[in-house]
């Protein structure tokens, strides 16, 4: 191999599209590779506790499906997804007050693919997406791939702040840029663990309608509230102007990769075409498995099992934080879902601290990844969904020790910059 003239080790480097320029490996990715090892108490990834599923039942069900319906379940199908599943999905959405036709539902490969196709049909380079601060990292990644700019809007303990949303919309308009939609996770927010209170929901919908902005309502956790029935979705209030994303990743199994979009009719047609261009059709076997589970298993009882399990883990997490985290820290108290959002004492950079945490055998996600503008250095996301309560308590104890060491170092250097 002659490399005397120089080589960048990638012969295609000059051919990539402009949107790939940010696709580099990073120290954080390297650290997460370690965090997945069993020796580390992983409170980073938001993985559902699938071991709480009746795996034997699902195994038998899947075997029967293939035996009895393999010719369909192992075949291509329509790009919009299985009609029976779409009807069952309408039943799921009805629990959050949504009245919808199966005709307006598109099944996707997880709701991540839904984010992708929605972004593809709406976003031109330089368009603006308005999103909560912080916001789901997977959504930010998708918006960035379509070269959109994200403008963050403040949340408080009651969710997205209406006045801040109005101000952001006005700012974007003044700057001459075009906002295409508001991206929001109203229930048990990822990563913030906050829920948009009922009193603000109509106002948020009205603000967006007045500004001619679509709402992209991402609701994977809506059925996983700990304190009563689900709040009516934004989409339950009005059908126009809202694209609703749902998922079975948290209420059934992430590995089946089945999510969906409920969209206004014109949007729906474009989404189907965009989705077909990516996958031809959503995964047939997975759709059959989910449909069978919804149709023949008391799945709402299973969701209750998940809720109780996650509630116990949330409690363990909050109690441990209360008992061990230092003054100057604060955290949200989620009423459902998977996440606690922690603000660390002044001067601590959660990203810089991560190697020390990994060495201390505990992992979290640093806050900066949940912003597109560099905020979040003092924040971290803890996911309590996967570890057992005792492991959570131990993980928080370890993290408190890591934090004490880091505070000592930061104090030595006058605040750490």
């Amino acid at each position, binding site marked *: 191999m002659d*490399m005397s003239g120089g080589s*960048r080790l990638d012969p295609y480097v000059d051919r990539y599209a402009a949107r790939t320029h940010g696709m580099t490996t990073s*120290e954080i990715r390297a650290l997460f590779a370690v965090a997945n090892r069993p020796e580390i108490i992983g409170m980073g990834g938001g993985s559902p506790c699938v071991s709480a599923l009746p795996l034997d039942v699902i195994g038998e069900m899947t075997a029967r499906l293939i035996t009895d319906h393999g010719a369909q379940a192992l075949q291509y199908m329509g790009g919009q997804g299985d009609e029976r599943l779409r009807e069952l999905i309408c039943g799921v959405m009805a629990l959050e007050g949504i009245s919808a036709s199966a005709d307006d539902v598109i099944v996707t490969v997880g709701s991540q693919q839904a984010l992708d196709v929605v972004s593809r049909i709406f976003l031109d380079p330089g368009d603006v997406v308005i999103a909560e601060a912080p916001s789901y990292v997977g959504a930010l990644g998708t918006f960035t791939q379509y070269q959109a700019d994200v403008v963050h809007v403040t949340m408080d303990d009651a969710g997205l702040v209406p006045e801040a949303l109005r101000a952001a919309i006005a700012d974007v308009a003044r700057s001459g840029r075009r906002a295409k939609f508001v991206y929001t996770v109203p229930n048990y927010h990822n990563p913030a663990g906050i829920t948009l209170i009922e009193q603000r929901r109509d106002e948020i919908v009205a603000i967006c309608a007045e500004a001619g902005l679509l709402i992209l309502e991402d609701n994977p956790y809506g059925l996983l509230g700990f304190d009563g029935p689900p709040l009516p979705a934004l989409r339950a209030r009005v059908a126009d102007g809202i694209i609703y994303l749902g998922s079975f990743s948290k209420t059934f199994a992430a590995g089946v990769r089945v999510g969906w979009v409920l969209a206004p009719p014109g949007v729906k047609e474009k989404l189907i075409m965009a989705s077909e261009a990516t996958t031809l059709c959503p995964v047939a076997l997975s759709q059959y498995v989910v449909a069978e589970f919804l149709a023949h298993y008391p799945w709402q009882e299973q969701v209750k099992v998940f809720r109780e399990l996650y509630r116990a883990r949330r409690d363990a997490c909050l109690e441990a934080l209360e008992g061990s985290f230092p003054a100057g820290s604060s955290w949200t108290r989620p009423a459902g879902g998977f996440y606690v959002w922690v603000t660390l004492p002044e001067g601590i950079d959660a990203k810089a601290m991560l*190697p020390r945490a990994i060495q201390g055998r505990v992992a979290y996600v640093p806050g900066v990844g949940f912003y597109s503008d560099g905020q979040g250095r003092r924040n971290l996301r803890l996911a309590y969904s996967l570890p057992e309560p005792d492991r959570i308590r131990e993980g928080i104890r370890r993290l408190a020790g890591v934090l004490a060491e880091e505070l*000592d*170092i930061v104090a030595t*250097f006058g605040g*750490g910059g």
Partner: protein
Amino acid sequence: MSDLGHVLVLAGGLSYEREVSLSSGRRVTDALASLGVEVELVDIDAQLLPRLLQDPPSAVFLAVHGIEGEDGGLRDALDLSGVPYVGATGSAARLAFDKPVAKAIVGRAGVHTPPSVALQHAAFRDLGGPALLERVVERLGLPLVVKPARGGSALGVTVVREAAELPAAMVGCYSYDGVALLERHIAGVELAVSVVDDGSGPVALPAVEIEALSGTFDYASRYTAGMTEYHVPARLSPELAAAAGAAAVLAHQALGLRDLSRTDLIVSAEGTIEYLETNVAPGMTTTSLLPLAAAAAGIELGSLCRDLLHRAAVRGFSAPGAPL
């Protein structure tokens, strides 16, 4: 088929360089398998030692980077288990992996190395962080390179150009290791010189010149193809190229290393060769430097690894804690 018998490539583990290590391990495993070697890639965990005792391999190739693979502990454990392995003994690896110690040893052997200090956090805490940093800046000047004393892949490394950036760089560095090396930044041509010993003495492979397009050869520049331009052999005069090779061989010998190593150097604007560090388990990924150098020398990676495994198997294991 090779007569080497069953060999293992060890990779992964719990170090920060786990991902890089697994990538190195897979590449070495594939290269050996393509030559018909009976080889298996094994992740490091608590099952390793029982497994080595139950089914001892003829030799082990260490593709474990970072503290787990390079601080000597794993090598000592292999010696205790009676398993031969490619590369430095635990004692030698421990010296080489500690950058301040390696700089002192290689410097004493006659290779220039940039002025530096190695400081534990306690020194800053006891003497006052800002005051001690001020002294460091006064004596070493700016820019400075702040790096963990023990670690690789540029993790925790910051090039500090303004004094105001130092506190954050120190905090980031101490997150990776308890000792920080603060080293004068030398502008110049970055080189990686691999050294291989097939039994007839250590020989330097062609130097790889590194030109990070971002200006800093950081983690992303190392492992994202396209972000760095590599020149092999380096664009140096024959004299400088020979001097760089000699410096790498000298470092290999002074540190008491075996089989293979990779030494990172900088040729300053004045033409001085400056020693930075030596790796006892060099990366073997598709963007790693030793495989590039070997390819430039016409050495196929699989053959190189196979020959080194042969050598290790014949040599046998060392007495634990054997002197260099």
